[in-house]
């Protein structure tokens, strides 16, 4: 899976939980929670959606690594690459 596909899948999953959010202008280094007004329930839905779309099983202990767009993409790229190998 290319980084562009991972990004696409992540943005789609975000759109599912925060349909009114402005996903085109997310700041890569700022917490998603502040930009999209998402709470822990939304975040759990995001983790479930990522599991469905990418097959990655994100343990709770790793949640904080997905706090920003950049962090999430880095994490997901590594996780999908690890699944391939």
């Amino acid at each position, binding site marked *: 899976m290319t980084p562009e596909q991972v990004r696409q899948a992540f943005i789609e999953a975000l759109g*599912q939980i*925060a*349909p*009114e959010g402005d996903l085109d202008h997310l700041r890569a280094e700022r917490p998603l929670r502040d930009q999209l*007004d998402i*709470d*822990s*329930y939304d975040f*759990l839905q995001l*983790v*479930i959606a990522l*599991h469905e779309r990418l097959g990655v*099983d*994100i*343990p*709770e*202990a790793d949640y904080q690594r997905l706090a920003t767009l950049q962090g999430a993409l880095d994490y997901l790229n590594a996780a999908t690459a690890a699944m391939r190998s």
Partner: protein
Amino acid sequence: MPALGADMEAGKLVEWLVKPGQHVKRGDVVAIVETEKGAVEVEIWEDGTVDALIVELGTIVPEGTVLATLHDGAGAAAPTAPRAVSPAPVAPVAQAAKPAPVVIAAERYKISPAARRKAQELGVDLAKLVPSGPEGVISLADVERAAPAAVAPGAPAVDRMEAMRRAIAAAMSKSKREIPHYYLANSIDVTSAVAWLARENAARSVQDRVLFAAVLLRAVVLALKEVPELNGVWVDDRLQMSQQVHLGVGIALRGGGLVAPAIRNAQDKTIPEMMAAVSDVIRRARAGGLRSSELSEATVTVTNLGEQGTETVYGIIYPPQVALVGFGRVASRPWVVDGTVQARDVVQATLSADHRASVGHRGAVFLSALDRLLQQPEKL
């Protein structure tokens, strides 16, 4: 038209889900009304066969209005509400005997409240929309795409927020005017509960993970059993305690606003069941599919404002309830355990209670029970 909670007196009928001649059972959803808190599903409280739909779509209906009449099965038509308020205007609906009455949409559209409202403003027919969202949900963008081109972006969204703000203002003003609140707060060490849940979740699939809020809700329900005067309503100058715990949960709506639907019969729910119930009401609160009974029947409410870092909530009771339980953020704190300072996970639990219905000592017993229960999460 059922009650929709202390802060709403009317709703606009936007969809009939039944038609004359159709059999309905107690608890069926028969119509959808649009309110300042989103689309609400109206349930029926008797079994029978729909006789006539009296209220036309688009009408704003106050609480207590007869919406439709029912045959009770014995051949006589009875109004579905306690009494008919007026000679009913003739309802322009198809007769049941005709083969294909298609006046009423028999299907429930999955649509967000914002999108439903926009569709009405723009005169977009929901049946002709192609949903692009997940699970066939019609989004605001779908509606806007389907609308005739030259439509000015409207102010009505602002009006809706304004209406919701007014509704909240009315309920909260009533609360502060009439309810003599007292407030108590305890810091509760939840280290063992947090660790227990982390272990439980590690063994669960992603879909079955439980949020800590569900653990707190379960503990609240059990603590209420020990102090039942916090669970009920204050009506006609007296406390009516409730056998069941219909647990209201404060849910922030995207873009502002607040709704506190009830998890019905929460006293019977295990932690995973509580999580499923919370997920269900949050999803429906945000997508617009709450039921009228959920908005009017809560016997106590819990608010959890820890998400943004708030430590302590001193809540305002939602009338006619008599208590509100608040939780702040679960934070790692220096804490004295067995004479030594340790880092522990601590949450501030608060109780706002109606002093007409309970005394401070009993409120303190409740918070103390909550603390005790949370020390043994495996027994919750």
